[in-house]
């Protein structure tokens, strides 16, 4: 990969939710950088803060949530302190987002053409005809057959996989520098998921768009991502290249996740399982949040372990040796 200036830098990002039950630190000190054309897999279980991280980058956090600290720099410009007007200019144009359920993000009463043309015109002064042509091209790029007819169709006339392609096509309209995709293939079937992964991979290679792929599925990102960040209870506990994280996992939680994948276990043998449950964000244990479930925890873990330096980093005082 070419060494270039990062397109997106997230530094010590903290997004907290101020609820009646207390402060939920959904994202608590998350840092990562994203270079041009790079695919970062952001992996975690429900409640780990992976989606909130994605939303925070675009400034899409609503009350009672608030970004309380840190910076999100897009080509050096801080988005946390940027005004709503500036964010509106960037959203959809330079940084786009794809959500899990396209039925929720597409307007059911507008045709695909209306929605796509609207998106183009929101950011650029072009003629309607040109906007339509751009929309058509975007549909072709994500592999939708007979795009002219499909432009006139409504979201309910598409299958789930096709709908997600339309959502991706809309995200691509302005050839953004960064796409944040939040579980975009989780609801899709295996063969359709493979088609979407194929299109996304091709796009990143051809257009240099950087991609943050948020998922709970390690198997998806291990084949797709250049780098992987594993989140637990609002913090990145391990980050590195896909090879480093999957083959050389150091954090006990990453080990646990990998161990509980069925295909990594011998057929019929009990699966290696992580004991206990994900802690509530309102009531996180002191120090390392994984401590109560960790087989290697010591008294040292009562303090918060820092993320180790270097390309492959982990937040652990007693890291495990590289996995076989």
């Amino acid at each position, binding site marked *: 990969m070419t060494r270039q200036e990062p397109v997106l830098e997230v530094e010590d990002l903290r997004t907290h939710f101020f609820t009646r039950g207390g402060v939920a630190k959904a994202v608590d000190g998350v840092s990562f950088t994203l270079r041009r054309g790079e695919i970062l897999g952001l992996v975690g*279980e*429900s409640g780990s803060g992976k989606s909130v991280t994605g939303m925070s980058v675009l400034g899409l956090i609503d009350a009672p949530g608030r970004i309380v600290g840190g910076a999100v720099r897009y080509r050096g410009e801080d988005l946390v302190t940027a005004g709503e007007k500036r964010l509106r200019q960037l959203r959809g144009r330079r940084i786009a987002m794809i959500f899990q359920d396209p039925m929720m993000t597409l307007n059911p009463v507008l045709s695909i053409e209306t929605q796509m043309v609207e998106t183009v015109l929101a950011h650029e002064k072009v003629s309607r005809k040109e906007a339509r042509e751009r929309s058509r091209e975007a549909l072709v790029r994500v592999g939708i057959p007979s795009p002219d007819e499909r432009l006139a169709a409504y979201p309910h006339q598409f*299958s*789930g*996989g*096709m709908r997600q392609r339309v959502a991706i096509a809309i995200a691509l309209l302005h050839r953004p520098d960064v796409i944040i995709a939040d579980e975009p293939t989780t609801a899709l*079937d*295996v*063969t*359709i*998921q*493979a*088609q979407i*992964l*194929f299109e996304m*991979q091709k796009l990143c290679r051809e257009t240099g768009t950087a991609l943050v792929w948020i998922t*709970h*599925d*390690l*198997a*998806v990102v*291990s*084949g*797709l*991502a*250049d780098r992987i960040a594993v989140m637990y209870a609002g913090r990145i506990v391990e980050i590195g290249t*896909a*090879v480093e994280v*999957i083959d050389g996992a150091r954090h006990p939680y990453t080990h*646990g*996740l*990998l*161990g*509980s*994948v*069925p*295909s*990594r*276990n011998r*057929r*019929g043998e*009990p*699966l*290696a*399982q*992580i004991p206990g*449950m*994900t802690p509530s964000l309102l009531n996180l244990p002191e120090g390392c949040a994984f401590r109560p479930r960790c087989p290697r925890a010591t008294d040292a873990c009562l303090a918060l372990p820092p993320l180790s330096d270097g390309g492959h980093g982990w937040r652990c005082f007693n890291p495990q040796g590289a996995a076989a």
Partner: protein
Amino acid sequence: MTATTSPFAAVPSPGSDSATPMLELSHLTKRFTTKLDFAERLAKRLGAKVQEFDVHAVDDVSLTIAPGEVVGLVGESGCGKTTLGRMVAGITPPSSGELLYRGKSMAALPHDEARQAKLKIQMVFQDPMASLNPRLRVSEIIGEAPRVHGIVSRNEQTDYVASIMRKVGLDPAYAARFPHQFSGGQRQRIGIARALAVQPEFLVCDESVAALDVSIQAQIINLFMGLRRELGLTYLFISHDLGVVEHIADRAVIMYLGRVVEVAPSAELFTKPNHPYSRALLDEAPRVDTRKRTFAPIRGEIPSPLDPPAGCAFHPRCPLALPRCRSERPALREIAPGRLSACHLNDMQ
């Protein structure tokens, strides 16, 4: 059957009479027919071309399941795997074909015996929040069925529920709580406890681990496997997740658009799939062991079951399709001992 306070005492050991299969599905078919509404009926009378149309959700499926066996049923959405599971569990009546439980046809059994037989087949659903009554306490969710069916008396219910809860790894102290007070994994355990409470021999698990986080999923899979050892349960395990099926199933059945396309022992199916669809599924399932690969997906969408392609249902997407596949539907044939596949290519060798 004698009532007993000790759970699972009535469960026979696996393989006690391995000659008769636990369950035999014989040419099971389920058609759903769209009903015409008033306006359409009127239009039809006036000569308009409106018709009722059929969806073959499950089309002529035959399968035998031996006592103590775990059969995995794999397929993508709309392939009929859930409908098949519901027919096995007795929730949906088949349109044609029959279900034989220990050699006897369920439909032909006298009422009381059919009731007992149905009790022996229980189902665990995908979404525990949708399948547990939110207004009932856990003690009632688990305890109601065994009480109604005379397995325990009202006095024994509390102890019985406690023993079942311990069995699935729940603390009996939580028996008075409501479903919403539990986490997703615990809720799934309640769903399993409810199924086990009537002392079944056979569990139909419909995507029972699909909605769970990876680490919780591993806990529930381990629970299923532990219960199998302990109680000698037989499973029909429905899942879209090949990794899960490969791990726990003895035999795997692959369905596509309402039909079975391949049946094989898991170990063989996952190393040497025969049907092109099985191969495509295996190739495209993301695996943790692959790094930065190029995805080479098979083309096309899953066809609508309303209008399935003629001949082999997979032919429009099949990279190896022959002219014959377009017109002639391949039969499910034995290609090796214990292995069945429905593909014309097997005739060519």
